[in-house]
């Protein structure tokens, strides 16, 4: 009897302990934390740590034996001071902005135009065309840029060959600064426009057909329907895609590296290729880190305004 009783008590206390542990594990906040843990690890490991390390690196001197001294900026900001005083660096800033803004605008316009065309062909043919138009985006850009490089080649340029047929003089695609800049933009647009196209196509499909019908009855021409229905309805997708593409394009590396390698005379460098040139090729890693850190404030300002607009529109509509 006594043995039975004590056994019963210990069994009961055992389940009591197990259930409190179980309750802890079942708490929603615990589960939520455990489920986000892998993501936290990834973000900290792949974003947080490298960013912090990059900031640390940018404060070091060339041999990385101590902080970089500055003349008028505090110790540790010497690399930035040198960049501020460097004409080449300001050229790179300017160049990166020109490159990113014109490439993103062109990609957005061409992507929108393609999406509109696709949207108006019947579903059966649409899949085929969509697949073909996506090809530039799925080829690794380093490879496709090599193809473009060959087409731009001074002696064997197939583009020049075609131009010659129409009696247009040969173009020094990569030899002359403005043409080289244009070439980089052309290749980037060719590579990036399909991404805009696919995003805009999805957005176009999500605009209810009846809004167009209502607008047509209200008296809108097709141009006015685009202006007053399509564009406002797509505003969020457009701004998010532009922001996303701006970030990626700003940090673009492979196209410049393969096509011009910054030349002629460092006139086509953008942030990433210049950071590579300074940091790796000229073995000044801290200064390279300082160059690449410079993108951050510029992009942060863009992101702030774009996302604020998105949040505002989200609150008002939908």
């Amino acid at each position: 009897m006594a043995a039975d009783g004590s056994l019963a008590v210990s069994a009961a206390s055992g389940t009591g302990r197990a259930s409190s542990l179980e309750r802890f594990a079942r708490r929603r906040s615990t589960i939520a934390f455990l489920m986000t843990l892998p993501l936290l690890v990834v973000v900290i490991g792949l974003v947080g740590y490298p960013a912090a390390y990059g900031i640390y690196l940018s404060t070091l001197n060339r041999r990385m034996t101590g902080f970089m001294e500055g003349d008028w900026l505090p110790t540790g900001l010497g690399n930035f001071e040198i960049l501020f005083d460097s004409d080449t660096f300001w050229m790179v800033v300017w160049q990166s902005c020109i490159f990113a803004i014109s490439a993103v605008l062109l990609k957005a316009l061409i992507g929108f135009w393609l999406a509109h065309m696709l949207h108006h062909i019947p579903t059966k043919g649409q899949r085929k065309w969509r697949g073909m138009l996506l090809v530039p985006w799925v080829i690794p850009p380093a490879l496709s840029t090599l193809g473009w490089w060959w087409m731009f080649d001074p002696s064997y340029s197939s583009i020049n060959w075609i131009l010659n047929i129409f009696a247009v003089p040969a173009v020094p695609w990569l030899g002359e600064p403005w043409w080289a800049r244009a070439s980089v933009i052309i290749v980037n647009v060719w590579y990036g426009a399909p991404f805009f196209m696919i995003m805009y196509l999805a957005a176009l499909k999500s605009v209810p057909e009846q809004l167009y019908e209502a607008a047509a009855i209200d008296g809108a021409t097709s141009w006015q329907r685009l202006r007053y229905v399509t564009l406002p309805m797509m505003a969020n997708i457009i701004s998010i895609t532009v922001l996303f593409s701006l970030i990626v394009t700003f940090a673009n590396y492979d196209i410049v590296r393969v096509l011009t390698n910054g030349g002629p005379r460092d006139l086509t460098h953008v942030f990433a290729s210049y950071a590579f040139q300074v940091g790796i090729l000229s073995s000044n890693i801290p200064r390279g880190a300082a160059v690449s850190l410079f993108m951050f404030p510029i992009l942060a300002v863009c992101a702030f305004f774009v996302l604020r607009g998105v949040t505002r529109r989200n609150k008002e509509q939908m």
Partner: protein
Amino acid sequence: MAEVSLRRIVKAYEGDVQAVKGINLEIADHEFVVLVGPSGCGKSTTLRMIAGLEEITAGDIAIGGTVVNDIPPRDRDIAMVFQNYALYPHMSVYDNMAFGLTLRKFPKAEIDKRVKEAARILDITPLLERKPKALSGGQRQRVAMGRAIVRDPKVFLFDEPLSNLDAKLRVQMRTEIKKVHQTVNTTTIYVTHDQVEAMTLADRVVVMNHGIIEQVGPPQELYHNPATKFVAGFIGSPAMNFIPARLEETSGALRLMLPDGATLNVPEARVARYRSHAGKPVLFGIRPEHLTDDKPTDKTNPAPLTLTPEVIEPMGMETLAHFRIDGAEVSARLDPATPAAVGQPLRLIAHMDQMHIIDPTNDKVL
């Protein structure tokens, strides 16, 4: 202000689906016409062809005397209210209503006057600054109507405007639409699958089925004199009973023989009309409200009939009783005081003045 005429309108979709099979319809100025019929009968297609949203395969549509076949929607001077309202989500209520006028380059002051006036009629003045997202279904419906009213078009088109509302709001908005029509008096074409909506709103009802017009007429006429079995069964709720029967002639009088052996005398006034069908099978059509309990009545020509209820549904103001005659379902509307019970034979009266006889070979009402 305008009349609308449809002349031999045909609509064929790809794959030879004929949604509308050559319909003719004349709609007078200021008239409120309702197209009603079951889902898929071609009502929306007809309305959308009038709006110019759908191409016409054959025939002519004229608005205010002008053939509009090749005129785009924006130049037809029509306004349309859609089932899901189709409000522009990024515009305020005010801008939604003003949009059509802005596009037509009306002066700001005139736009403001019209929008405020429409908002007053529809009782949505406090909502003018809101976005559609912040409105209830009924309020969105009003805005959609406001958008149509401010335009002061030749014709209003409505495509099932109340179908997305709950039952109570639907009744309320129905009255509202009727009031608005009485105020602005614009020619209106209204599509619905709900015969109650059609009966209550219309000056004339157009009953459609399978892409053709079955009958056109004022609501009372469709109710009392349906032309076909379809119209007889579609108009009225609960629906008319159809009982297979035989017409027998004995010494100049006609009698209806029901399959359960009951015989009903055909009123003398109708004998001449049906005589040619004597001896043939027919369908006996009688509405539940004309099949009532046996009580002294001022109606002439009552015919007694005894049936056994299978289901009894007390509704409060009346009781519905359901019977079966040789497989055909039959219902009757009883006085709630009648002691009816399932399985207990019940003596009923068929009001033969209100009955219809249908030729089963072509489904025409004789």
